[in-house]
């Protein structure tokens, strides 16, 4: 870490997170991945060091930070080699920002604070079986009935969907299109809410669920912001979420590179270390090249965000650059590791299975391109 963008507090944050990940996460990753879960106690521990509160207002129990702190957090969390643990542990970073920005004081007190204390788990539910990219056309309905909304429909691919205590759910309260979308906080124990787990290619340690809402009665006080204005609230989130995805993708690419480099220096074939074969060291240079350019782009966008700009087109392009960098580095790392790269226990094997989720979630690659094009006025 160097340069004017990172100060002493970033360095201390890195040190704390590195120690935390080494002590509380990395030794257990294999077991948690196989068990397809990690202990709830980890949320509490992450709250104690301030990780869950990173970037949230102090009044709610958080610590304000800047985009460079986000990058540091992404890098350090990735060192465990499990995207699933990071995704599960940090789902609140997509679930609670709309409440922080637009929610009532009562919701902040009852939902945000316990989540940042690590006592409760929050998840965000936007995607539906009928589609995730086209958010404006979501079909889950919330019909007002006195002091309640009656919610019907379903959501799918929801991270922490199985065990979340609170769900930030995008619903249709009005007419078609983005103008009819609202955000509701739905308690995990609401009658009529059913959840089923999903098995996935990667991210095993995080649970992913389909949710069914069958006449769920949700108090109107659980509405986040104004009725029919929810689409705007959901969009608020995306800059930060996509910066985090880009930071995470970059960080996992780096983990693959580090593993491949160490392997290439150690492993002997034809009487010399792998790295002494030109083909292999050129692969490593290609990986390092992509890493360097991705990092430069990442920090450029972080600088724009820090200056208060809303560089939407750049963020879309950054997300695609970073996820491609990760796909490339994971693919090449597995190749350099050879058969060992295909066997469980190597970080690159797991990360290889975790590439697609970052290229699809939080706005798929194709959607990012279209959004960038629109922003550029094409």
């Amino acid at each position, binding site marked *: 870490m160097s340069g004017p963008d990172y100060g002493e*507090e970033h*360095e*201390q944050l890195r040190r*704390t997170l590195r120690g935390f990940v080494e002590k509380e996460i990395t030794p257990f990753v294999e077991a948690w991945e196989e068990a397809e879960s990690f202990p709830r106690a980890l949320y509490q521990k992450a709250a104690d*060091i*301030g990780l869950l*509160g*990173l970037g949230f207002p102090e009044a709610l129990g958080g610590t304000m*930070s800047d985009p460079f702190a986000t990058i540091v957090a992404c890098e350090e969390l990735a060192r465990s080699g499990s995207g699933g643990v990071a995704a599960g542990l940090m789902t609140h970073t997509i679930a609670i920002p709309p409440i922080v920005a637009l929610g009532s004081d009562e919701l902040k007190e009852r939902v945000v604070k316990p989540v940042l204390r690590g006592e409760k788990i929050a998840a965000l539910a936007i995607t539906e079986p009928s589609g995730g990219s086209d958010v404006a056309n979501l079909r889950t309905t919330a019909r007002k009935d006195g002091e309640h909304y009656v919610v019907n429909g379903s959501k799918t691919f929801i991270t922490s969907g199985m065990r979340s205590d609170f769900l930030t759910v995008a619903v249709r309260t009005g007419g078609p299109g983005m103008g009819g979308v609202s955000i509701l906080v739905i308690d995990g124990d609401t009658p009529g809410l059913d959840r089923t787990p999903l098995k996935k290619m990667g991210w095993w340690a995080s649970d992913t669920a389909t949710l069914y809402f069958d006449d769920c009665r949700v108090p109107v006080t659980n509405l986040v912001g104004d009725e029919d204005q929810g689409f705007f609230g959901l969009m608020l989130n995306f800059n930060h979420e996509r910066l985090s995805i880009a930071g995470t993708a970059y960080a996992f690419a780096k983990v693959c590179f580090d593993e491949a480099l160490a392997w290439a220096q150690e492993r002997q074939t034809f009487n010399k270390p792998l790295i002494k074969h030109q083909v292999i060291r050129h692969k490593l240079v290609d990986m390092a090249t992509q890493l360097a350019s991705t990092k430069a782009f990442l920090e450029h966008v972080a600088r724009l965000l820090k200056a208060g700009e809303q560089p939407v087109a750049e963020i879309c392009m950054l997300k695609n650059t970073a996820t491609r960098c990760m796909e490339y580095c994971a693919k090449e790392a597995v190749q350099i590791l050879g058969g060992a790269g295909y066997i469980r226990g190597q970080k690159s094997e797991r990360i290889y299975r975790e590439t697609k989720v970052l290229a699809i979630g939080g706005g798929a690659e194709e959607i990012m391109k279209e959004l960038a094009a629109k922003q550029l006025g094409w």
Partner: protein
Amino acid sequence: MKILVTVKRVTDYERKVKISPDGLSLVTEGMNFVPNPFDEIAVEEALRLQKAHGGEVVVISIGHKDASKEIRQALAMGADRGIHVIAEELDPDAVARLLMKIVEEEKPELVIMGKQATDDDANQAGQLLAGYLGWPQATFASKVEGLDSEAEKAQTPGVVIAGGEATVIREIDGGLETLKLKLPAIVTTDLRLNHPRFASLPGIMKAKKKPIKEVPVASFGVDITPKVRNVKYAEPPARKAGVKVADVAELVNKLKTEAKVI
């Protein structure tokens, strides 16, 4: 209770240290520095005692101007304020005599120090300070219940303070020894005293506003001319590659004839 804790800036134990070509010093260029791990244990112990007994925790570092970072780290863990004596690399005797001046001014009831620093492993400053002050000392403080114990999970201090006395369990060759010291006293920490906490993010932000008093070394009027001179640094001899043995008999034979250990 006022507790003074010392924190030394040392080379990162996870990085390989390089020796300068003339063998007279270590290469600091590009080196990463961290707080001495034993000192982090000292800070942790001080914070636990403060939680139990109230008072103030003051962190002192004597060294390079960048050692303010190591002080800041201790403040981020929860200590209240810092004193930074800016100086070049000193020997343990000079450090002890400077600390004596600070102790005389601050008048703490307890000074907690690491048993040694992981860079030069001298293991002297605490003992020398106790000697100069004429205070009782307990070195190598440890936790009787161990680091996997419920007591450690509950973040109980290993050093027990009661009735103007400190009870310290210390590691000795044959096992554990219990010492009772009249306060004020010096305690130095061993590895098995506690698990130091991580500096939390809110702690890191709060530490930015906590005061660190900078004092030039010259202002103490202490003669810091080194009594110890470093003659030469050398790397330990490189380890030879291992050999594979076919069976136990060959192993025993090699241990007898080549390694000559049995």
